[in-house]
């Protein structure tokens, strides 16, 4: 039903003509608009508040935080937290490298397999499409739960302390395959048919004809994958013990927040006496560093996510 609604919806382009031609907005609508601006304004401010708070805290002098607590605007500005983190940047850069690498590899491989599967499953002339679709979909209906999964990864696959234990579980999901399938359905089957008549094989058609025409679909699904890799901490926490030196970024942040010793270690490496560690502002600075790239990418990628949500929402 909602497939015809595209990203313009959120961009504010009004699909309805009548509002454009309407000259006077009556009192009742004006009233709702005023209420609307106030109401959504408050929600928007609450949504942005925590971001401002952690950015502000990361630039605040530690003494001011201990005395007055976190504030919206720094009372005393200081770059100490960042300076300390980057004085001994091995940890942070290592974590960045792991996360960037994992995101790149996971997204590329996952996207290829997801689109290949999605293409085959939406082909009306593929006799096994329903069987395989159900086989994939069933995994969302019934699962063995966390512990059998954990045993499987650690005992059978022997992936404890391996980056593969983080990379593989996120590689694809039934939801993304269904999303891709729905996207690719909108490419006319006649394209495939005419290419078949010209003698092209199915894999060739997928690679040379479908993939280039399906760029918006690839962008959307790829970004969902990339986001889940960037934000991944759960499998890292489950499967990567202290033996792994360079943790993915979010786990590094998690440890920084929950275990003060991570901050002490990094301070010790830079020969800073324990008393002088700007503990609180360093926690906040680490959060800013781990989230920064998402905030920067956000304006450019937002519309692809909206596309994915409107297409995939109801038929999830």
């Amino acid at each position: 039903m909602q497939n015809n609604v595209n990203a313009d919806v959120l961009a504010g382009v009004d699909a309805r003509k009548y509002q454009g031609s309407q000259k006077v907005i009556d009192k009742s609508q004006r009233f709702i608009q005023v209420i609307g601006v106030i109401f959504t304004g408050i929600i928007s401010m609450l949504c942005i508040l925590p971001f401002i708070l952690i950015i502000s805290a990361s630039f605040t002098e530690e003494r001011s935080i201990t005395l007055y607590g976190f504030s919206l605007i720094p009372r005393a500005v200081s770059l100490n937290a960042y300076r300390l983190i980057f004085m001994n940047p091995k940890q942070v850069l290592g974590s960045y490298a792991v996360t960037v690498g994992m995101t790149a590899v996971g997204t590329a491989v996952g996207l290829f397999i997801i689109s290949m599967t999605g293409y085959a499953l939406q082909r009306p002339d593929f006799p096994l499409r329903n069987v395989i679709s159900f086989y994939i979909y069933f995994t969302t209906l019934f699962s063995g739960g966390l512990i059998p999964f954990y045993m499987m990864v650690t005992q059978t696959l022997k992936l404890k302390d391996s980056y593969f234990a983080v990379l593989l579980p996120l590689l694809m999901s039934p939801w993304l395959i269904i999303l891709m399938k729905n996207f690719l359905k909108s490419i006319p089957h006649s394209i495939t048919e005419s290419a078949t008549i010209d003698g092209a094989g199915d894999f060739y058609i997928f690679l040379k004809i479908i993939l280039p025409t399906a760029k918006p679909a690839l962008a959307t699904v790829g970004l969902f994958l990339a986001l889940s890799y960037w934000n991944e901490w759960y499998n890292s926490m489950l499967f990567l013990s202290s033996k792994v030196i360079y943790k993915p970024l979010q786990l590094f942040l998690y440890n920084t927040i929950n275990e003060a010793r991570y901050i002490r270690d990094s301070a010790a490496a830079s020969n800073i006496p324990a008393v002088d560690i700007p503990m609180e502002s360093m926690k906040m600075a680490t959060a800013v560093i781990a989230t920064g790239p998402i905030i920067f990418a956000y304006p450019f990628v937002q519309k692809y996510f909206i596309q994915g949500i409107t297409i995939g929402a109801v038929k999830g």
Partner: protein
Amino acid sequence: MRGKMKNIIKKRTLLFMCIPAIVYFFIFSYLPLPGVWLAFVRFNYRDGIFGSPFVGFENFRFLVLSGQLWTLTRNTVLYNLAFIITGNILQITVAILFNEMAGRKLSIYKKVSQSIMFLPYFISAVVIGVFAYNLLNVRTGFINAILKQLGRDTVNFYSIPGLWPFIIVLAYLWQTTGYGSIVYFAAIMGIDSEMMEASEIDGANAFQRIRYIILPCLKPTFVILLLFALGGIMKGNFGLFYNLTGANNMALFETTDIIETFVFRSLNVNFNFSMGSAVGLYQSIFGFLLVMTVNTIVRKIEPDYSLF
């Protein structure tokens, strides 16, 4: 039969293209299934899953008699109900309010506001935990800093279980309102514009338009989303609960322990694999039955939207 076989062989490339995914789901979703046997044994590492002594329903009996299963189920279900009710009300309200914003200036405002509201969806659970820490911690938290300035006593949020249902619901709304309103906003955009024009001509004001056209048109979307949300009512958002409350914060378990956090602890803290698996299996089975029921209902009222 023969014809079908022939057809499959003819389309074998398409089958080959599905093989990576088939193998993948076999390994990560089907192969762990026999592991649910853990729920029926007293597990020890030496004997492994299938060598450990069989105890039948002993683990389940313990969970029921100790009252743990009831607490976990209650917390998980009540939180989800609170999420569904408050979430949908807020999302629909926001979508309708945005829809009424017309004109150049308001359109720009709308665009900015929607972008800001959608932003929390992109934030990892760990960072949400940092946000909560920044706002709530007793020594330096933003809220306590304000309380101090006002000359009030500080509140140690991380040790008062009674406050957490509100905090968790607020955090949930914070993260999902923008995301969820997109779905409803798209549904409003899909309403036939002729209906809107007709109401205009008939002299309906904005309230009447909302009451008699927009809300009824949103009903199918709402019902479907509601039903599927009910189907998932036994599933909790581990990341949110775990990070918000400050990782295994025992002081708050009474009101914040859900099935996911319990199972995680049996794996990572108590090493009671059998008990954790029992709760996991209970969740899987009930979750499965719920989805099946919901799907049957959906198929009756709106066959196009049923999952299978």
